């Protein structure tokens, strides 16, 4: 066929050609080995790089379950979506922007929302220690714009319970130079107050704690710098307590504030209420109606300058806790028992009041801080005891009714959570494992992030 194109001499391969071919084959084999090794190295390095740098955000959304969220390992990257079922504590700066502590594995991460709570993203996946599962995700925080304050975690190894401050929306935190133990913080704009103890927390099983001075610290620049308030009457009263086990700061305005202290039951169980009307320059004591069996813990809230709500609790048992709600319309000078729930060994109150509060669920000190009572106005308030439904009153606390729908959704099942309001209409409630619900009219609630 193509014979006319053949070489008339043809080829006569011999040992020389065979040797060349074998040498060439050896070179090809060597190159292939090198290429194979290089390819393996590239694949291994690439895979390692992928594992190290892969975004942890791609397989999870705000509507996934906490189980799937916990499948993500390591410190979560900023922007990682957080499911609403992982939220344990939410605060809102306005109707759109809010922050939350979310449970990820056994640690707490800071999450942010900019759409009213429908979607959440990790803002800081490496918070200071002490806010994780070991303490029931304890910890309180506040945000005013991008200035944030985080406190109340587990004691550090040196016994300090520091206040952490951020000025970039929670991306970075620094320890405030106060304390070493910070009990409570309240910010009004860039004016921040902090109640700090001068002694480290004694380790568990250590020597009984001695009375420790409590200092009121003030910052006028969003937590950057602090100075002790030169007060009169405050230190004398507070320091007279055997131990300020629970200290709650309730600031009404820049000038008017209340401090509620509750000592340990085995150290007299005394509850004290202090009031200042001049930005902390002078303090006066106010009577506290809680007492007797209702001395285990108290919680204070206010809707206005002189409208105070004081909630007292007794020793709880079998899922029930006796409670008393007192109201004051004169800044704590006089109190009126407004509602109660008595049982399980607590005597009925002196004043005849129906049991309009729920016996179920626990308030302080069983719950976390002062997150259970949200007062929106002199008539409207919400109560969310631990392991209980959300209750609402529209008549100043005389009658309370459970908010329908939330119990069937799973709220009150025992996970950490809170309720918060920015107005009488706008509110959010969250519970770990259940999710986040919202009301925009103060009446109807609906889930977010689904």
């Amino acid at each position: 066929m193509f014979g006319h194109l053949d070489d008339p001499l043809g080829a006569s391969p011999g040992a020389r050609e065979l040797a060349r071919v074998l040498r060439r084959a050896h070179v090809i084999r060597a190159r292939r080995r090198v290429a194979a090794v290089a390819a393996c190295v590239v694949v291994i390095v690439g895979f390692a790089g992928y594992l190290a740098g892969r975004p942890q955000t791609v397989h999870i959304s705000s509507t996934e379950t906490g189980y799937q969220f916990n499948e993500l390992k390591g410190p979560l990257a900023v922007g990682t979506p957080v499911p609403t079922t992982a939220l344990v504590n939410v605060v809102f700066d306005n109707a759109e922007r809010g922050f939350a502590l979310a449970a990820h594995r056994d640690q707490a991460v800071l999450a942010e929302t900019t759409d009213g709570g429908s979607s959440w993203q990790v803002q800081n996946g490496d918070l200071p220690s002490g806010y994780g599962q070991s303490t029931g995700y304890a910890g309180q925080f506040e945000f005013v714009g991008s200035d944030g304050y985080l406190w109340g975690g587990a004691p550090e190894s040196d016994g300090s319970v520091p206040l952490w401050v951020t000025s970039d929306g929670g991306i970075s935190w620094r320890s405030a130079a106060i304390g070493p133990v910070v009990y409570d913080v309240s910010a009004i704009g860039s004016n921040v107050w902090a109640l700090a103890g001068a002694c480290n927390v004694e380790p568990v099983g250590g020597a009984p704690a001695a009375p420790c001075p409590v200092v009121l610290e003030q910052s006028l620049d969003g937590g950057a710098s602090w100075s002790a308030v030169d007060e009169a009457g405050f230190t004398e009263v507070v320091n007279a307590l055997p131990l300020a086990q629970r200290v709650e700061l309730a600031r009404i305005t820049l000038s008017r504030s209340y401090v509620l202290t509750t000592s340990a039951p085995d150290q007299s169980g005394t509850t004290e209420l202090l009031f200042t009307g001049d930005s902390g320059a002078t303090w006066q004591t106010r009577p506290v109606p809680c007492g007797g069996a209702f001395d285990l813990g108290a919680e204070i809230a206010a809707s206005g300058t002189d409208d105070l709500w004081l909630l007292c609790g007794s020793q709880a048992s079998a899922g029930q806790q006796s409670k008393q709600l007192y109201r004051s319309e004169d800044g704590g000078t006089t109190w009126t028992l407004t509602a109660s729930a008595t049982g399980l060994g607590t005597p009925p109150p002196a004043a005849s009041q129906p049991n309009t509060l729920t016996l179920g669920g626990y308030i302080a000190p069983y719950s976390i801080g002062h997150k259970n009572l949200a007062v929106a106005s002199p008539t409207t308030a919400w109560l969310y005891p631990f392991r209980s439904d959300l209750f609402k009153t529209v008549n100043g606390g005389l009658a309370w009714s459970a908010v329908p729908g939330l119990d069937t959704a799973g709220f009150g099942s025992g996970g950490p959570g809170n309720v918060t309001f920015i107005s009488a209409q706008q509110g959010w409630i969250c519970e770990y494992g259940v999710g986040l619900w919202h009301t925009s009219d103060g009446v109807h609630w609906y889930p977010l992030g689904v």
Partner: protein
Amino acid sequence: MPARGLDGFDLAFPDLYRLAYRVAFRILGDRGDAEDVAQEALARTSVRWSRLEDRPEGWVTRVASNLAIDRYRRRRRPALPLNGPVGIVDPHLGERGDLVAALRRLPRRQRQAVVLRYLGDLSEAQTALEMGCSIGAVKSHGARGLTSLRRHLSESTGAGGDNVWAS
């Protein structure tokens, strides 16, 4: 069929080398280039001998033709002008170029059949084995390929193409 065993490649080497050389020379028309192609094709055959030793002819033919076509394309690129007398001129140089060009225009199966059957001088049965098809299909692809080759070569060389590539 080459012998099996550790020395199978050595034993099959002369025949395979001649086969590769023949295919390459038909395309390139240069003894040195054809030897280079044959050595490269046999070196590659040696590397994968364990998989080819049952029937290496088809693989060697295809590799040799591909290498030769690649070398022919590179050689067709503009070269530096030569000074002095020009050496021996291959009288079939134009035909080889037309052959390569025409082969490249054939569909894949037809090109395979033509290369294996006519450049590699494989039998119809061996070509069918290499192509994984029946002998009838080899005949069909080969005939169509040759027809196409004639047509392409006629376009490029004029009516005389039929005489050169008559089957």
